[in-house]
């Protein structure tokens, strides 16, 4: 399972991006994973507070999301590591 977020969130619980459905818009809470992956995700705009809208959420395959005006495709594994609320 994923590690817990570093900080405690003031508002209830967070859940991984992989739980989201097509059409939803959520806010990033934090990103887990290795430094390298995290740094790449952060550079692409996955930072705490950023809005993420889910363009397409396949059942097992990768996700397409919109962050800061760009469409990003990310694998299932990665969508587990982004905590959103």
């Amino acid at each position, binding site marked *: 399972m994923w590690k817990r977020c*570093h*900080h*405690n969130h003031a508002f209830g619980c967070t859940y991984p991006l992989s739980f989201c459905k097509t059409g939803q818009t959520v806010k990033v809470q*934090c*990103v887990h994973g290795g*430094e*390298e*992956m*995290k*740094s*790449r*995700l*952060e*550079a*692409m*705009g996955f*930072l*705490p*507070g*950023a809005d993420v809208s889910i*363009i*397409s959420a*396949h*059942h*097992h*395959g*990768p996700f*397409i999301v919109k*962050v*800061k*005006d*760009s*469409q*990003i*495709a*990310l*694998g299932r*594994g*990665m969508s587990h590591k982004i905590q959103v609320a």
Partner: protein
Amino acid sequence: MKKKITIALAGNPNAGKTTLFNNITGARQHVGNYPGVTVERKEGFRDYKDYEIRVVDLPGTYSLTAYSQEEVIARNFLIDETPDVVIDIIDTSNLERNLYLSVQLIEIGVPLLLAFNMSDVAKAKGYQFDMKKLSNLLSVPIVETIGHKNKGTFELLDAVIATYEDMKAANPAIVRYGNDIEEAIREISSVLYEEHRLTSKQAHWVAIKLLESDRDIEKQFMDEKLASVVNRLTSTLEMKLEEPIQTAIASHRYGMISGACTQAVRSTIERRHSVSDAIDMVATNRFLGIPIFLGLMYLVFWLTFTVGAPLMDWLDAGFGWLGEFVSGWWAPGSESALKSLLVDGIIGGVGGVLIFLPNILLLFLAIAFLEDSGYMARAAFIMDRLMHKIGLHGKSFIPMLIGFGCSVPAIMATRTLDNRRDRLVTMMVVPLMSCGARLPIYALIIPAFFPQVWHAPMLWLIYVIGILLAIISAKLLRSTILKGESVPFLMELPPYRMPTIKGIFTHMWERGWLYLKKAGTIILGFSILMWVITTYPQKKDFDRDYDNEIATVEMDEQLTPEEQQEQIATIENAQASEALSHSVAGRIGHVLEPIIKPMGFDWRIGTAMIGAFAAKELFVAQLGIVYSVGEADKDSESLRDKLRENYTPLIGFAIMLFSLISMPCMATVAVTKREANSWKWALFQVAGLTIMAWLITTIVYQVGMLF
């Protein structure tokens, strides 16, 4: 005397860097590699006013960390080679994300200039910019450009010169990281200032990088004293901030950017769904995605083979004419080693490869269209699920597709893969994608042994066997010698756009040129070598008196001229066959016979196989020589007759199977060596594929013999 200045182009992937680079430099370009790595380095020149400008295209990056090869290269270039001006090319329609790199460029302290590219797209999206304000907030000059319409290029060059003459670099401390982090930056800077004699600007940047725990910078500057300071500060900061420092730093950068954008950018229309989104709803749909993808692939191959066929015939005829024209320089019937070298060796060998140029260019054209339109990124996305199952990355699919054209550019295309293991596996299996050069082998063999109705399914079967073997090999490699966690899929999907004619032709040409270079260098060399080993040692005393036999036929007045010619050709061919058997190639073929016997092959096929190593398509020409049918090509009926006389359909199938799997051609081996940066992998590829080919073909032949 013109002033010489160097400028560097930086920017995110998909921001239109290549187009602007071409607009600035025109045809004066040079493509090479960055030392020690296989990241492409493009350089070009432009004379403008009183300046000679050298333009270096840096790899496209989102950031300037030490995590990826591209980012390290871009960063080191900026620090070590100190370009006079850096142009950061920005996709204006995706401003905040693109400015993230700009902010880091400002922090490094290079003289910076922002090119707001694709400003027309941004305006169409409903954005309005106050460029003056934005330029003031970021303290860097901004120029608007529209790369694909070549607008703003002169303004950009004027701004480059102004920035160069002005020598006023931006204020590097434009991002405020909040009191706690700023305090830490100051403390580390002061240590750096004392110990390493950096300027205050440099110290500021190094301090931020140390807080981000940047590997390269740590290696360069970290000593005991500094380490203790940094470690102490990091742990206090993380306690206070309740999040990793890297995240905090990135958040502040993005915070600064969105602050600037709120002040200087207005969105006039609220549009939730763009055209691009609408296309994606269909193109990446979970049900429609794969059928659409397969349909497009079918179109690509249809274009390649159907449209390419007549062009190929013209080229073929052209080389035939050239061969005859060159032969005409010598008196008929005269024997000349030079004539034989030119006509049989060089024109025959190189021409045999060049006739595939139309097919290959058409395939590359279609791929360039798919890439430039933005669909290729979606195709990688769609294929990722499947590719993931065999332990590869969605992006591996693009090199494999190019592999159907030619393995050489395909192996070069593996550069888009970030992970070395993924890259190596892809490189190893690419030769199993049946390349264009293997097609003439199938085109010769299939009609020789199989009835008309079986032609298409047979060809299809061969291609499918190649794909299946590639999948199995990839899986095998990934779970044995190239084990390791697969890299998660993360890829930007650029918005769909209409590719420009110039753009796709440039891309097509870049790949096509690699193929041509292969024909001009390796294949030319090998054609000469093959000619030598099939010609020498020459046989002086033949078993039969061929000259006498020909003379007899010529004297025979009962024969029509046609009959005479036919008989003479047969006699000459028999002589050629005897000579070949005596040559080095023939002898190697004989030596190989015991090894290839289990696959049903004799020394003749063995000799032709030697040719296939130089270039797969040479197999057909070689077989033609062995069977002494004179000029042989894929349509040669007389060669097919010979094959039918000597072999069974099972052997025909075995020949195709072995040609498909066995060792890749010389050019592929050479490019694998260069791209993998080791002989080990190149030799592994040769040995692995050849052993696999031998095993599979032997099994198929031996089992087939039981029926």
